[in-house]
């Protein structure tokens, strides 16, 4: 992958000036490349990675991972059914997977009840959904490549020849 993308994926707020220095390109070239990536849908957005537990009053929000077993359709395969599911705003991520189930859906809600309601009212009744299995996340150790725990210790001597 382009090193520019690697750097932006690690930190989307790196100043153009520093990107230009690190990659030995002009600031203009960097700006153009980023614009192209944005236009071509390679860069889909820039978000903050939020650790809610560190808020002064952590909210009681719940994240559910739902495995969904579905019957693919003759023309559209999994895509249409997946769309019906991921169009719900509660769905934060949706992946087609190999293995025992087909879709993995991540849902964020205020409480357990909301997730239960979503599954029983919106997901399970869909006509091609055979089965769902829900998991609730207990703790986030790492999100979007960012360590939410204390950083690992640098084992090196702090000064060495």
């Amino acid at each position: 992958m382009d090193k520019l993308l690697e750097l932006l994926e690690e930190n989307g707020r790196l100043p153009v000036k520093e990107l230009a220095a690190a990659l030995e390109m002009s600031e203009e070239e960097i700006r153009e490349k980023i614009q192209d990536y944005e236009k071509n849908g390679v860069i889909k957005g820039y978000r903050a990675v939020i650790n809610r537990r560190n808020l002064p009053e952590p909210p009681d929000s719940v994240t559910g991972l739902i495995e969904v077993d579905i019957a693919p359709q003759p023309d559209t395969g999994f895509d249409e059914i997946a769309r019906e599911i991921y169009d719900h705003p509660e769905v934060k991520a949706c992946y087609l997977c190999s293995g025992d189930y087909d879709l993995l859906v991540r849902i964020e809600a205020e409480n357990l009840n909301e997730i239960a309601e979503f599954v029983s009212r919106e997901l399970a009744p869909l006509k091609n959904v055979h089965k769902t299995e829900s998991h609730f996340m207990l703790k986030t150790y790492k999100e979007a490549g960012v360590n939410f725990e204390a950083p690992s210790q640098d084992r090196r001597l702090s000064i060495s020849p």
Partner: protein
Amino acid sequence: MIEISDTVASLKPSGIREFFDLVMGMDDVISLGVGEPDFATPWHIREAAIQSIEDGFTNYTSNKGMTELRNALSEHLDSEHNLNYDPEDEILITTGVSEGMDIAMRALLNPGDEVIIPTPCYVSYLPTAKMAGGKVKILNTAKNDFKIDHNQLEELISPRTKLLVLNYPSNPTGVTYGKQELDKIAELVRKHELIVISDEIYGHLTYNHEHYPFPTLESMREQTIFLNGYSKSCAMTGMRIAYAAAPPKIIAAMNKIHQYTMLCAPTTSQFAAVEATRHGADAIKEMKGEYERRRNLVHNRLNEMGLDCPLPEGAFYAFPSVKKTGFEPEDFCRKLLAEHSVAAVPGDAFGPGGETHIRISYATGFQKLREALSRMEEFVNEHSAHTAGSTG
């Protein structure tokens, strides 16, 4: 009453030690003072070491090192650099390049023989030469952008000059040499029949052109002790494993000392080195790309904040001048550490020539490096008043 030998008593303690003590016990320090990679040893190399222990290979090896490792190295030097060294009598496995440097000097020097050492240099060269009974001739490179000026070199050569120590890419300056510059040095080595000890531990980290090992230059193979190892290329500093390649007469002499002081390099590390020699190339390439981006950032930011720094061509060090700040490098480093929790090493720890510089190691993650550079910039700005006052 205990009396230490005069030689040892006369050695100066390492200037780095003092800073190490200062940093210990401080929180939230970003250290740019670390002379080793921030990567972990690639897993397949660690695994080879673990496997050898599980298999019970924990005995001595031959003094020279395992045949398998010497063979692998001989093949590697041939395929990488077209260098032919006989694994039987031209390669010696050492416990780090530091040991290689020590026994090379001891094997060749008679009391009073002169050793030319370009400075600033790695902290061990001067004391090691002294302990080996050599008479050190300093070649201060500060006036020539930290490169060896061959006129200056020729002036230092006397009938008693026996050794020239080279280290490129250099710790602490990041300077390295192109083919033509090396040819000029080689010409003098030939003319005056010197022997070169060439520490090329950072050879794989040369960014703007190829690295040319000294023994690859015309006829230099016969006059060179080539020292290299795995510490920096495969992030294996703690494994203490390296090698020397040289003509048989020299290797035999070095091995004589090695067999009495070291017996053999650590066996576990030798197994790791076999794996690193055979399959380490990909990891090395990946690390190099990462260092190069950091180097570019560091170079750009240092110059921007007014600390003059030529583009480092190799290793993972930048050696900017702090002259414009009006601080001596030691004061600069102490204040920077106390006020902004960033550690760097004063340039004078590396011998004559570093009196107005500091060493910055960029073997630190990109984001941390940015943070450290921001803190440095803040520091330099805060003290710009100091500059105005002191230079007026």
